[in-house]
Structures are given as structure tokens and as C-alpha cells.
């Protein structure tokens, strides 16, 4: 994994930790809902935390297609490059 990708995953972890108030060890193949035990509200709050972390806008429907941590990283990369 590239250094930039590592940093991105680390930033995502940090955003997530602010939402669930516990340490997490994120892997790219993790399923956000099942492996991390997030309910629909936690996912929406995670989305807000990510928006603030990366200073981007992530419309809720963009989150709907995100299943794994890797999907999320790709979505954020796309949104950042469009910004």
C-alpha cells in the first residue's frame, strides 16, 4: 500500500474513533457495517466526521454504495480530486 493510502486509512480511523469513542484497527477489506458494528445512525455520523476531517462534502447517497473500508477510501479520493 502506498504511503498516501496508509495516511488516508489512518485519517479515516481517526474520524471513526471520534464517532464510536474507541480505538479501531482498520483494514481495507473490512466491512464497515458488519465488522465495525456500526448502525445506520453511526454510519451517518461517521460520514459527518469524514466531511470535517477531509473538508469535503459526502452526500448520504454516496455512502450508500460504500461497503468496505477500501470502498470508502476510494470514494474519499474521488471526492477530494473533484474538489
Amino acid at each position, binding site marked *: 500500500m502506498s504511503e498516501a493510502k496508509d495516511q488516508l486509512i489512518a485519517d479515516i480511523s481517526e474520524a471513526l474513533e471520534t464517532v464510536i469513542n474507541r480505538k479501531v484497527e482498520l483494514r481495507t477489506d473490512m466491512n464497515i457495517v458488519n465488522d465495525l458494528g456500526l*448502525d*445506520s*445512525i453511526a454510519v*451517518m*455520523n461517521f*460520514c*459527518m466526521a469524514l*466531511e*470535517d476531517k477531509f*473538508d*469535503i*462534502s*459526502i*452526500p*448520504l*447517497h*454516496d455512502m450508500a454504495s460504500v461497503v468496505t473500508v477500501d470502498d470508502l477510501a476510494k470514494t474519499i479520493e474521488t471526492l477530494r480530486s473533484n474538489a
Partner: protein
Amino acid sequence: MSILEKFAALNNRYDHLKQVGADPFAVKFDDIISCVEGVVNGKKTLLFGTNNYLGLTFDDEAKAESIEAIRRHGTGTTGSRIANGSYKGHQELERALADFYGHTHCMVFSTGYQANLGMISTLVGKDDHLFLDADSHASIYDGSRLGHAPVVRFRHNNPDDLAKRLRRMGDQPGDKLIVVEGIYSMLGDTAPLKEFVDVKREYGAYLMVDEAHSMGVLGEHGRGLAEREGVEDDVDFVVGTFSKSLASVGGFCVSSLEGFEILRLASRPYMFTASLPPAIISSTLSALRTLRAEPQRRTKLTANSRRFYTGLRAAGFHVGPECSPIVAVMVEQPEVAVMFWKRLLEEGMYLNLALPPATPNSSAFMRSSVSAAHTDEQIDFAVALMTRVGRELGLLPEENNVCAFPGPTAVFSGERLGATAATARALPQGAGAAAGMA
């Protein structure tokens, strides 16, 4: 494996809840005998969870007009306004609501839920942008899902957070619609509407305020939070319901936006549903007249709210951030909340229970709503009962337990408690078993 297998987790949670010995989502009333009294398991029960703010469900005039409407116009319209036409009553009610709010246009929907669904899904299209308070009612979220506009949430009651998110949109084309609520249905807190109006103006957005729980409750004339805050001219769309202060069922949206009427041919939740029956239209018209003619009901409601809120706060309960007819008591442990709720019902008091995962921080709310029809004695009874059961369950210290160093359940500073409660989230999307209560 059945098609219902996906609800296994929800089933488990529900079973777990029922093991405590109560089912707060399947209360069976033997009878409802007045605005504030019912019968449960043969026992007369005080109702503190009905949203019956002005106490008009048994109003003699409304009942008489409703009965007369059935005699004259029948029991139902058996179709939609668009396909089957509007009755005189529909038009009269729309004119009365527009007049009450000082707006040019009004659309009446068959429920309050559908009013949000119909307006939000239609006003913004795929090239527009929708901004929702994170604690929005399920009907607002569902409206956003039925429509095609990208949805961005902002932190609850936080105009700066909204401004930040609007700023991020940059110069992207498309109209922007901000949706907030007058009084939030779970904690009873109000939106900082003046500040939201400033943000709306700065970013050239439209503003919709859902006054479901504030109509008839706030403002000198009962028009809601926008009236109380003096910002009605800046609210582009007011959405409301008939199932609270107006004591029936149905919803509406008023606006003075030019061209508003075309929404009747664009809003699917308006077009493809049966219109309200004559009995409902008549009682709602009557209740609206009473709301306007009897401000003393609002005065009594405000006094009752204060009596209940301050009573519970003084007893040491962790209440919501501000006094309104919606009074919420936080209970950290859901199991204790279910037991609390069950004990209250056994002792003759009914209120609502909101449980995780539909509540923040894995805590639960005992959510009550006060009515103008409650007597002082009934409110005092409720406070005393909740205090007694609270002590029984260890939520409050014993009466004679003088403690120099108050523990977490014995913090008496209302401000301090309010600040904590203000960070709590109410009931967003209909995610859990407690959803859809309001």
C-alpha cells in the same frame, strides 16, 4: 430461511426487551376516556405521551362538526384530490391555514408524515442540494430518500456547522434547501432559528421549518417557533401536522412562493393518496378556530410544561435542555428505562419510551408530552410518581440521603444537566424499535 430472516437482529432486541416484562411498543388501551385519561388493563391511567398539546381531541364543537360532516358528506372521499377532485372542505381548510400563517398558498396532505415526504422529495431535484439537521424526524429523512437531491447532514441545532457545509458546496449550481424543526420531538429542544436564518440568507438557500410540535404551542398567536423568533418572513416553507395541537390527522405546507400551486401536480405523496375525509377536515377546521380564539389554552400549556419540567428537574432527574411541552428524562441504562416505564404504567401513568439504537450514547429517554388539559393535580401526581419510582429503581437518591458529594444521578444544577442533554441526539432515521413514535 424466510423473507423475514433479515429482521432476526431486530427480533432478538425486541425479545430481549420483552424479557424485562413489558412491551412499550404494543400498549393496549381498553379505552380512551378524555384528552388525558385512558384505561389500561382495567386501570384508569393518566396520559402523558399523546402530543395532545391543546387538549382538543374531545372538544364538543369539533366533535359536533365532525359528526355533522359525516351526515352531510359521507365517511370518506374514496380517492385523491387530483383524480377525484377536492371537496369544499379541503379548499376551506387550505384557505384557513394560509390565512392563519399569513401566506398565499397551502397544500393539505393526508398525514404530517406525508407533508414532509411530499414537500421535501419534490422541492429539491437531482441538481439541487438538501441540508438536514442530523436529528431530523424520520419523515424528513424519508422525504430526502424519496427525492433525488444529494443530502448533507449538519450537526444538530448548529448553524455554524451548517454554514461550514454550505461553504464546502462552493459555487456548485443548484438550489439549496435547509430543513429544521421548530421543537424536536424527542428532547423538546427548539432550533436557533434566527441564526439559521442568517446562514440561509448568506448562502442564498431556502428554509423549511417543520412546526409539527410547535404549532399552537409557541408564538403569541401559536404559529410556532418562527413567530416566536420573529423570522416568519424568512421561512419559505412551513410544514405542520393536524395530529398534535389540532387533534386529528393530516398535514400541510404553507408558503408564499410564487408558482407554489404546481407542486400539486408534481408531489407524488400528495397526488397518489386518498384525501382526508370530511369528518377530519371539519374537526381540524374547528380546532384551528379554537386555537386562534383561545390563547388561554397556550398559556395553560406553557404553565403546565413548566410545572412538570421544573418538578422533575428539582427531583433530580436528568431532563432535556429546555422547557417545552415535550419533557424527556434520560435514563442511562435501557433495561432500567423499560422497568421504569413498566412501573409507571402499573401505577397509572402512561408516557413514551425511546430506546437505543434509536437514541444517542446507548441511553434511553422517558419521553412525555404535556397537555393544556392536564390539571395541576395530575402533573403533581406524575412528578411524585416518577420520583417515587425513580427512587425505587435507584435513579434518584433516597429522600433522606443527604450527600455532600453528589454522584452522577444527584447533580441538581439544571444548567449543567441541560448542557449535557443538549449534546444528545434525538430520534433520527427510523432505525430501531423505538422509531416512528411521534
